[in-house]
C-alpha cells in the first residue's frame, strides 16, 4: 500500500466516523424519531451478533440459546438497578458484573456440551435458552426475585453523577434526547465489540477457534486444548451478550421474560448466517439489515391502504414471508452469507488467478 492509498483510507475512515456521529440527527431529520430508536436497537443487535459470531462463526459451535446470555445480562442489571430489590448500583459496576455473570453462564452451558457437535449441540443450547427464560418467568414465588411475567419496571437509566441519559440535554445547539444519548453509548460499545472481534480473529486464540471449527481432532493433535478453547468461546460470546443485555435493560427501563424468546435467538443467528458467518463486517451488516428491514416493512400496510383502499397482506405476515424467502434465496445463491469470510473468497480468487498465470505463462 503506498502513501496515497494510506491517505485515502484515512479520509474514508474519518468520513465514516463523522457520518456515524451525525447519524442520529440525520435520521431524525429525514426518517423521524422512531428510526433513531431503530438505530439504537440495531447497535445492540450488532453487539449480540458479534458475540454469537465468536461461538458460531469462529469456533463453529451452533448455539440456539444465545439470547439467554442477553437475558442474564439484562436481569443482572435490572435487579441491581431498580426498585425491585431496592438496589441501585451504578452502571459502571453493573455492566462489567453483567458481563462476568453472563460469562459464568456461558461456561455453565459450555461445560456439559463439550462432547456435542452440530445438531446435538443445537438441541441442548436451545433447551438451555428455554430454561433461563422459564426460570425468569417463575422466580416470583415463593420469594419474588424476578417479578415473573410482569417483568421489572423503573430500571435506572445510565447515569454518571447527576448526568442521566434519560433526560433531554442541549449541547452546541443540538438537542440530545434519551434516544440520541443512548445512540452514542451504544455506538461506542459496538465499535469496541468490533475491535475486540477483529483482534481476537487475528490472534492465536482466534486461529485456535477456527482450527477447532475446521477439524477438532487435528486441532487437538496440534496441541490445542480444545476443551478450554471451546469454553473460552462460549464465555467470550456470552460476555458480549451480557453487556448488550445490561445496556438494553437501562435503555428500555422495563424488561420481562417475553423479550428473550427462542425466536430472538434465531433472529441473532440469522444475522450471523445471512451477513457472513465468521466475517465481522458481514455480521455487522447482517445485524443492521435484519433490524431495519422488518421496520421498513411496516410502511407496507399504510401504502396498501393508500393504493388499494384496503390492507391485503398484514405487514407482520409479509415480514415472515419475505424473511423465509430471503433465507431460501441466500442458501441457494450465497450460502456463505452476503459478505463471506475472507478466508473463503478474496484470497482464494487472487490465488487462483496467479495460479492461472503460472499455468499459462
Amino acid at each position: 500500500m503506498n502513501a496515497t492509498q494510506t491517505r485515502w483510507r484515512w479520509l474514508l475512515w474519518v468520513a465514516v466516523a463523522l457520518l456515524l456521529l451525525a447519524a442520529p440527527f440525520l435520521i431524525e431529520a429525514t426518517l423521524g424519531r422512531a428510526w433513531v430508536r431503530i438505530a439504537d436497537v440495531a447497535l445492540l443487535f450488532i453487539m449480540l451478533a458479534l458475540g454469537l459470531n465468536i461461538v458460531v462463526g469462529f469456533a463453529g459451535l451452533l448455539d440456539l440459546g444465545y439470547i439467554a446470555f442477553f437475558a442474564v445480562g439484562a436481569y443482572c442489571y435490572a435487579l441491581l438497578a431498580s426498585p425491585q430489590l431496592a438496589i441501585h448500583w451504578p452502571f459502571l459496576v453493573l455492566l462489567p458484573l453483567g458481563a462476568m455473570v453472563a460469562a459464568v453462564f456461558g461456561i455453565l452451558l459450555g461445560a456439559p456440551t463439550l462432547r456435542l457437535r452440530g445438531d446435538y449441540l443445537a438441541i441442548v443450547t436451545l433447551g438451555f435458552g428455554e430454561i433461563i427464560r422459564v426460570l425468569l418467568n417463575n422466580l416470583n414465588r415463593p420469594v419474588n426475585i424476578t417479578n415473573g411475567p410482569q417483568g421489572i419496571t423503573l430500571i435506572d437509566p445510565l447515569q454518571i453523577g447527576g448526568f442521566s441519559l434519560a433526560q433531554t440535554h442541549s449541547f452546541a445547539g443540538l438537542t440530545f434526547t434519551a434516544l440520541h444519548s443512548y445512540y452514542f453509548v451504544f455506538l461506542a460499545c459496538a465499535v469496541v465489540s468490533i475491535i475486540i472481534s477483529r483482534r481476537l480473529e487475528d490472534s492465536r486464540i482466534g486461529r485456535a477457534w477456527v482450527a477447532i471449527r475446521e477439524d477438532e481432532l487435528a486441532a487437538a493433535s496440534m496441541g490445542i486444548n480444545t476443551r478450554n478453547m471451546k469454553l473460552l468461546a462460549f464465555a467470550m460470546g456470552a460476555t458480549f451478550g451480557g453487556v448488550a443485555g445490561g445496556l438494553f435493560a437501562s435503555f428500555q427501563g422495563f424488561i420481562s421474560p417475553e423479550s428473550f424468546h427462542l425466536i430472538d435467538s434465531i433472529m441473532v443467528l440469522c444475522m450471523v448466517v445471512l451477513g457472513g458467518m465468521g466475517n465481522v463486517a458481514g455480521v455487522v451488516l447482517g445485524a443492521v439489515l435484519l433490524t431495519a428491514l422488518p421496520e421498513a416493512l411496516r410502511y407496507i400496510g399504510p401504502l396498501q391502504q393508500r393504493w388499494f383502499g384496503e390492507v391485503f397482506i398484514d405487514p407482520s405476515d409479509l415480514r415472515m414471508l419475505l424473511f423465509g424467502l430471503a433465507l431460501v434465496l441466500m442458501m441457494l445463491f450465497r450460502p456463505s452469507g452476503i459478505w463471506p469470510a475472507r478466508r473463503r473468497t478474496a484470497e482464494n480468487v487472487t490465488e487462483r488467478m496467479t495460479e492461472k498465470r503460472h499455468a499459462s505463462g
Partner: protein
Amino acid sequence: MQAADILLAATGISKHFGGLAALTDVSISVRRGEIFGLIGPNGAGKTTLFNVLTGLYAADAGELAFDGQTITGSKPHRVARQGIARTFQNIRLFGGMTALENVMVGRHVRTRTGVLGAVLRTRGAAAEERAITRRARELLDYCGLAARAGTLARDLPYGDQRRLEIARALATEPKLLALDEPAAGMNATETATLRKLLERILAGGVALLLIEHDMKLVMGLSHRVAVLDYGEKIAEGEPAAVQRDPKVIAAYLGGTVV
C-alpha cells in the same frame, strides 16, 4: 542400548474395539535421532498404535513413556506439548484456512498470548504474533511451500497437502514426528522430494516414526523397523534382517520372497 537414548517407549500396549483386538501386547521403542519404520499389511493396527501414542485413543493396557516422562492416558494436546507431532493417513488439514494459517496454528502450543493480550494488542502479543508468522513462513519454505502461503489448504494439490501437514506438525517443535503414510498417493518424483525432506528433518534433530507402504522408501530410510500383523508385533530390527524374516514374508506375501 542406553536408557537415555530412548525417546519413546511403548510397553505392552493393547487396544480392543468391542470384540476386535486391534493391538495385543505391542512394545516398540524409538531412539533419539533415528527413523523408526512401522510396517504391516492393511488392518494390522499401525494407525491404531499411532492413535494410542498420540493420545487419540486410550490404551486398554500398557505404558507409554516419552522423553523420560510417563504419557500414558495423556490427552492429545498434552502429548503434542510433550513433543510428539503427527500427520494423518487421510489428510486432516484445516481446509478453510490458508497454508500459512495452518502452520501458524501449529505454533499455538509454543506460544502464550491470551485473550487480554490479543484484545489490547500488547507489545508482547504483537511481537509474538510477528514471530509466529515469521516461523510459519520459514517452515513453509523449508517444506517447499513458500509460494502456496496464501492458498486455502483444501485447494492445494495432494502432494502439497501432505507436505503442509508436515510443516504444520514441525511448527509444534516436536522431538518425534509421527508420519502416517506420508508417501501415499505420491508419484516417484514427489516421493523423492519427500525423502529428501524427511532426511533433512532427521538431520535437524527430530526423530521420525514412519508408517509407510512404499517399501523402497521405508526400508531405505529407516534405521529400524517393526512389523505388525493382526495387532501383534511379529518382527523388529534392521530393515535388511526384517526383510529376510520368514514370518514377515509370510504375512506379506504368503511365502514368496521379494
